[in-house]
């Protein structure tokens, strides 16, 4: 693929961030299997983690302050669609990377938002996101995390230490380690980590074909998070039931009887009983709701539960299901600036793809 005798002083990838917390939050979100595949592309890199041939998670990161990928053997090929083959991939132990990033303890130790999670608020729910964005931009607000309980960037990262770890990363190609240089400030210590890279294993191919899309929902992550938090960990499977809004009958209103055809229902079954949650057809809750036809698919709750870490720290969630039940959950993650790349995608998100359990299919 590329010459082995490449000089280490000319890395093919150089990148830097001034604050590792955003990156660490992404890594932590997919940290359920120690081996992760990193694919470097021109615009950023993806990290892919797979579990039980049914769950795939990847993050797409372009949140670097500085990013230079010198494609091995690349010509002046400017067509961004055709350079897929020029991507470089390797495997790394993800746990080790996270420990290294947090070497000074300032990569955001407590990621839990348990003390500050938001309540169900219909009235001003729509404005919440904007508040968060503004606070991310405003460094003075970040500092007084104590007074901003439950709001702003600090609620994602637990706040605490004022110091931020900055990081410089380089990779010289197959056979070379991934090198990270970390420092808090100029006077303090610097840490150099060389993380062994491995040849990538083939990744499960779970392509989501948008033309076969049956359901597409965009909602604030807290709406989904709180629903999933209700579900007991002992639950075996979770079922997503949805039908187009027109067909959803509304006879239940006022009588608190479950709707016959809910527009979105999450149903979980376990040893100790079952839980059922319906979402209202309200723009404040479901920002986008597109459903082609009634559907009902089940997933292993253990798999869905893997998303918890990512979900907890994310801002918005996009939920999609195709006609075979392949579930795609995209979580928009906080980033230093909400930038978009050419395709109009946000700069950092975590995506989970999960296969449906069995062929319950359409109703």
């Amino acid at each position: 693929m590329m010459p082995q005798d490449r000089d280490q002083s000319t890395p093919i990838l150089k990148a830097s961030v001034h604050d590792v917390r955003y990156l660490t939050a992404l890594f932590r979100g997919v940290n359920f299997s120690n081996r992760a595949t990193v694919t470097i592309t021109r615009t950023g890199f993806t990290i892919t983690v797979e579990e039980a041939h049914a769950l795939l998670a990847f993050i797409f990161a372009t949140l670097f302050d500085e990013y230079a990928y010198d494609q091995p053997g690349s010509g002046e090929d400017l067509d961004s669609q055709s350079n897929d083959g020029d991507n470089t991939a390797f495997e790394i132990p993800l746990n080790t990377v996270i420990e290294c990033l947090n070497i000074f303890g300032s990569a955001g130790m407590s990621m839990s938002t348990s003390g500050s999670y938001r309540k169900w608020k219909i009235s001003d729910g729509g404005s919440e996101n904007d508040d968060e964005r503004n606070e991310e931009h405003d460094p003075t607000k970040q500092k007084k995390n104590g007074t901003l309980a439950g709001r702003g960037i600090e609620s994602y990262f637990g706040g605490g230490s004022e110091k931020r770890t900055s990081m410089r990363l380089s990779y010289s190609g197959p056979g070379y380690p991934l090198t990270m240089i970390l420092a808090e400030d100029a006077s303090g210590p610097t840490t150099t980590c060389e993380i062994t890279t491995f040849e990538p294993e083939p990744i499960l191919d779970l392509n989501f074909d948008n033309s076969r899309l049956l359901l597409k929902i965009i909602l604030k992550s807290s709406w989904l998070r709180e629903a999933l938090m209700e579900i007991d960990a002992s639950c075996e499977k979770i079922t997503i039931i949805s039908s187009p809004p027109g067909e959803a009958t509304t006879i239940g209103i006022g009588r608190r009887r479950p709707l016959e055809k809910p527009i979105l229902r999450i149903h979980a079954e376990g040893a100790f009983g079952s839980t059922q949650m319906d979402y209202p057809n309200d723009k404040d809750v479901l920002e986008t709701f597109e459903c082609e036809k009634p559907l009902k698919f089940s997933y292993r709750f253990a798999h869905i539960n893997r998303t918890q870490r990512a979900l907890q720290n994310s801002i918005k969630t996009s939920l999609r299901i195709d006609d075979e039940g392949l579930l795609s959950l995209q979580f928009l993650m906080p980033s230093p600036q909400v930038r978009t790349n050419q395709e109009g995608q946000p700069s950092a998100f975590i995506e989970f793809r999960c296969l449906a359990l069995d062929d319950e299919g359409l109703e």
Partner: protein
Amino acid sequence: MRFRTSIDDIQTFSRIVQTIEKIQKKCIVRFTEDDVHIICNSETNEGSLQVWCKLRVDCLFSDYRIQSNSENTITLMLSPEALLVALRSATPPSTSSSNTSGYETEEVVMKLAKKNDQAVLSFEISGLSRAGRRMRVTHDVRIDVMKPADVELLEEPRVPEPDVHVVLPPLSKLKTIVERLKPMANVLAFRANNNGKLQLSIYTESVKVDTDWNNCVNPKVQRQNDERDPDELHEVCISLKGFLKVMNSYIVSTTTIACLCHQYCIILYVYIGDVADARGVLTFYIPAMVSE
């Protein structure tokens, strides 16, 4: 054999015991007329490290009275865990979150006693309850008084002249870093030179992590031959877990000086209080790991 004293600085005393407790189940405490020594010299603990702690009596205690047939010293063995429990219940509530006693301590007396033919260190805590009532709490910590013959065998480890003396960065900072390294490796390479450089490294199959400090202070020491290259790095490979236990002493430390004997051992002097007016010092002997 008589021994009786009031404990003035309970917080410092209990923090020291807290550090010791993490290292060894049993420790030796030796009271002399001027100093208190706490010694852990068992080979069985993690990384077979030793602690020799020396504290000035007048910094911790008052009304200190000691009398014995062996030059007014008393040497005993006790469980630091039990000692810590006694001290915790004597700690004023405001400074310790672990205190649940709900009373204010006025005086803590520690004395040697014999109860049911068992030698004990008896802690008599008198204080005021929240309602303002006077109350007394007594803790007895079981001890074994050591025979003078055994005491004579106690000897601090002998070490060669160190190659490097270096003042360490704050131990709380070091501890954070060593904690991160713990899941990744068992052996920590501790390197330093006489030109302000300090490096903590791990090296395993999957990762190599070096953390460098370049602006450390090398205290001046009198040396016979100072011809050596100050930039030469000296290295000692030690047990990472053992070192992390030593890092627990950050709660009492002000200044810490590390002395390296190349591939032989590290001696860590953790000063309690200001170095100039040292109230005490915890000395850790951390031997190099034999293999690996």
